């Protein structure tokens, strides 16, 4: 489990494992390890850990906050929960996508692509040049390339992927 937590923090967990790892995280001891690793990481990067007792004092102040009373929605709370969860997920993807794309300084397509990549690791995806040697060596084995005839060379000469 410790290894999985570490991998999750590093963005090394594959999309199909994420659910399982996150579920496991809900355990108290797992949460402690998660916190511990973050503190270690902060210390190593020299980005100061919060002062002792931060969590307790935060919890206290949070509990003291006045509760906001709002009229409840008409439709089933189950549906509401679902749609909120979905909206939150989409928002997260969009935010990370935009962050990644602003780093790339790129097009809406790059945003879409970056959004896709969030399942993997947004920060590491760069829309950039594919090494031509690898590309050339690869494409003669690709059935899709064979169907397309010269099609794959369009990729090679598309100026974005251009590097003689």
């Amino acid at each position, binding site marked *: 489990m410790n290894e999985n937590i570490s991998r999750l923090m590093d963005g090394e967990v594959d999309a199909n494992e994420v659910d399982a790892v996150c579920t496991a995280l809900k355990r108290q001891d797992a949460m402690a390890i998660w916190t511990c690793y973050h503190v270690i990481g902060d210390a190593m990067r020299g980005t100061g850990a919060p002062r002792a007792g931060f969590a307790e004092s935060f919890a206290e102040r949070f509990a003291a906050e006045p509760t906001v009373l709002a009229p409840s929605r008409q439709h089933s709370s189950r549906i509401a929960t679902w749609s909120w969860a979905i909206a939150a997920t989409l928002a997260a993807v969009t935010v990370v996508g935009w962050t990644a794309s602003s780093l790339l300084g790129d097009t809406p397509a790059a945003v879409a692509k970056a959004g*896709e990549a969030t399942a993997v690791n947004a920060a590491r995806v760069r829309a*950039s040049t594919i090494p031509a040697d690898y590309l050339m060596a690869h494409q003669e084995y*690709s059935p899709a390339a064979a169907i397309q005839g010269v099609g794959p060379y369009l990729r090679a000469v598309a100026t974005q992927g251009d590097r003689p």
Partner: protein
Amino acid sequence: MPTRVAVDPRCAGPLAGYSRPGRKRGGPFLVLAPAAWVLFTLASSARADDASQWVARVAQAARQLNYVGTIVYQQGARVETSRLTHLSDNGREYEKLVNLDGPAREVVRALGEVRIYYPDAKIVRVEPRTFRNAFPSLSAEQQKSLTQYYNFRLVAGERVGGHAADIAVFEPKDGLRYGHRFWADTETSLLLKARVINERGEVVEQFAFTDLTVNAKVDPPMVEPTWAAVPPDWTVKEASAGDVAPNDTGWAVTRIPPGFTKIMEGFRQLRGRRDPVAHLVFSDGLVAISVFVEPYTTAPAPTGMKHQGGLNVYSVRQDDFLVTVLGEAPGATVRLIGNSVSHR
């Protein structure tokens, strides 16, 4: 939106949408199961034939016909236009691709060699490429995985570049591969348009002929490079032999997505590398994923993910080696493979 999220195959694991008859338990069903199974098997092998025959026919048309046309290539928000001329002369293929936008580029394929001219940089790349693995040569296993991992269907009737086209749809049954749509000329089977679609139904990459003359009169000069001889002040970047002697490289992929089988393994010499590079290729019958392993040099190689259109590349350092995975598959798939490369 909610429905799209709900059907996102990524959320449901590698075998999402993968149903087989014979899972239910029940009295009459037990009796009928063998018959149903036979029918199912027959139907699925018929589909596998359809799919692989279609793929073979289209690949063959691309090689054997003479044609001239304009291709629009779109990758994300980028659009580029090129002029393509193809000549098949007694089984020998000649092809010339000239881009019409941006800096001039020319790709000329003749007799198993591809030359890419970059006049602005005064560089010619020479690639010994033969497409020797080209169709029709799908193994039985690949033919099977074509329909085992994709829903294949043919849809009639649409026009592309003034030609009536049939559409072949390959919809992935899991989130580990992209969807593909191919439009082929109803009359000649020549590919008119191709589209790669990601797990959210977005077009990742596509190309299409906007005009095309099939069975055109193509004279040899039309497929010759603009530069008959390479100008003396140009640099020729020549790749070493493209052939890879099949060989055990000592490397293995422990977590290969279902349906992908190894179609090649060997060492190849890449430009600028002292040591040979191990090259393994896996294919599911429609796309391929290459794994390259080479000694990690002191110059730090860029690691992480990259993409270009429907291609994803993932590089990762493994001790003294650099692993690079490249393929027409989603980033997650390429990454999964990259992280599971190990010494046998």
